[in-house]
């Protein structure tokens, strides 16, 4: 809906904006802010019989094992804690997915929230992408399983990342998107490669 002329109002409700407008930094690895991405935080007893059906209804995927992420194209399900999953899907599909979750978990104690606009998402790519994260996170990336979702900190803020394609996808809170972009860019500066 776009109105023109006097009295025109800016309606941003259907025009999602990523936190940094797709900022890019090219260093020894490439850092790119991506999104907006649809994200739903689903909290419930993961061993409840209705839980797999709710996840299936929302994103068409199964339940991940502990600390794992199941990815299929634009959709993914990540294990965040013993009672929390992160569902990833196209931004426009989040509202409908929430309705399907509510239907599948009707009467079951749960919490499902659209957190798409609360997050910022980054891609770190290139042959040395791991070094960008190694400098910022207290994580042994060599011991990280290929499909592992690791929640940790990036310098001073909470973050979660996993391997995807030729690099990593990292999620942070949107309120610290600028800080995280700065961290990743600084860490990826040419001349600061490890080893």
């Amino acid at each position: 809906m776009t109105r023109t002329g006097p009295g025109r109002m800016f309606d941003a409700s259907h025009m999602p904006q990523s936190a940094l407008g797709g900022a890019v930094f090219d260093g020894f690895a490439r850092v790119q802010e991506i999104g907006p991405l649809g994200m739903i935080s689903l909290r419930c007893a993961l061993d409840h019989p209705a839980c797999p059906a709710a996840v299936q209804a929302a994103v068409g995927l199964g339940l991940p094992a502990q600390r794992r992420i199941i990815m299929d194209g634009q959709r993914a399900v990540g294990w965040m804690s013993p009672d929390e999953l992160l569902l990833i899907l196209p931004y426009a599909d989040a509202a409908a997915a929430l309705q399907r979750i509510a239907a599948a978990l009707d009467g079951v104690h749960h919490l499902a929230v659209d957190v798409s606009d609360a997050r910022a998402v980054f891609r770190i790519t290139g042959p040395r992408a791991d070094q960008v994260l190694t400098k910022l996170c207290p994580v042994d990336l060599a011991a990280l399983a290929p499909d592992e979702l690791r929640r940790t900190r990036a310098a001073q803020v909470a973050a979660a990342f996993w391997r995807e394609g030729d690099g990593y996808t990292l999620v942070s809170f949107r309120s610290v998107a600028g800080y995280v972009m700065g961290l990743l860019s600084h860490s990826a500066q040419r001349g600061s490669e490890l080893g």
Partner: protein
Amino acid sequence: MLTLECPYCGVKAEETELTPGYEAHLKRFGPGSSDDDFESYMFARKNPKGVHFERWRHAYGCGKWFLAARCTVTLEVFGTYPAQLGEPPADIIAKITAKRPGWEGYK
């Protein structure tokens, strides 16, 4: 540097990913308790030189509280276990008893 394995998500978390919660296995004395009991609950801590039971929160991770048994002198970790347990698991007790004969127990 202290590394504790979170019993909920299995991450070997480095100290900076965790938030300390201080002494574990305290018995709470609330409203209606005697002044002595409340004072002891509120202020008295063992602060031992040796085996210590502590609460930790995996703050930069799964967010869960868990308990850990470690040595405050050597930083040796004897084990971690879920916060729902009212007392340390038998295997951790056995491990501590084997390594620190004569320790006074967790209470």
